[in-house]
């Protein structure tokens, strides 16, 4: 693997598939990259009304303490999640947000946080099924963070949905990934690796 331990939080509302997105990322590392990952979800019983959030820890060694207080990467798919979690991002971390759902700015991210946005909902709708917006986000995540081997992510997607849904979800992944890749390119930033915050600022 190409990195040390990395802590990720994905948040939005129920029904957006937050948990699946998180477990796909975890699975990519734990199963398809041979590393270790824990995913802990925390959602109200209003699994479908209220807010939903998941924490993923990726590591090259077994993980003892499975909770994330200050994520390296925050992925938000709702305004509420944005407002609640943005301040917790580690300085120099990454904020990924769903453009249609989130009006940025109300809260300020810690210094040095890089921000990437994607209209995942609309992209998903273009594929005909809004439900796959979470996988679009995963693809986008893969492209902008370059944290996990894209093939591993793709395999994890394939492995995480029922056969009938694989084509659609892979398309969603690719669409998100491509959008992310282009964005990164447009932002004409050299692909940087995610390294612990302090160095990140360097």
């Amino acid at each position, binding site marked *: 693997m190409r990195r040390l331990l990395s802590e990720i939080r994905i948040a939005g*509302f129920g029904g957006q598939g937050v948990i699946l997105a998180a477990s796909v990322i975890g699975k990519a590392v734990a199963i398809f990259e041979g590393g270790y990952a824990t995913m802990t979800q925390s959602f109200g019983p209003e699994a479908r009304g209220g807010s939903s959030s998941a924490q993923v820890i990726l590591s090259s060694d077994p993980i003892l303490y499975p909770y994330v207080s200050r994520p390296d990467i925050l992925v938000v798919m*709702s*305004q509420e999640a944005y407002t609640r979690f943005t301040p917790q991002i580690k300085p120099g971390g990454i904020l990924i947000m*769903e453009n*249609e*759902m989130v009006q940025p700015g109300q809260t300020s991210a810690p210094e040095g946080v890089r921000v990437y946005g994607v209209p995942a*909902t609309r992209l998903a709708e273009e594929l005909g099924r*809004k439900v796959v917006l979470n996988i679009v986000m995963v693809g986008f995540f893969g492209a902008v963070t370059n944290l996990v081997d894209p093939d591993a992510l793709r395999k994890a997607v394939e492995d995480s949905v029922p056969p009938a849904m694989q084509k659609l979800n892979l398309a969603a992944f690719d669409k998100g990934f491509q959008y992310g890749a282009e964005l990164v390119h447009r932002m004409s930033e050299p692909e940087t690796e995610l390294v612990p915050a302090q160095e990140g600022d360097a």
Partner: protein
Amino acid sequence: MAKGFVAITVERCKGCGFCVEFCPTKVLALSSAFNSKGYHAPQVVQADKCSGCDLCGMYCPDFAIFGARHAR
């Protein structure tokens, strides 16, 4: 002028489309805009056709719309 009117609470709407489908006079259509939860709420496209029958209100699972007759 229309016999009735229809009121929509966009932020409550979850875009199910019941109101649009079951409005007898096709007063409504889903807008392309998202509300803050990412749903397409209905909008009035033929206000003059609204009878105020409130069928939209009875169907709306999210209490986001209702119709009523204009007090004459």
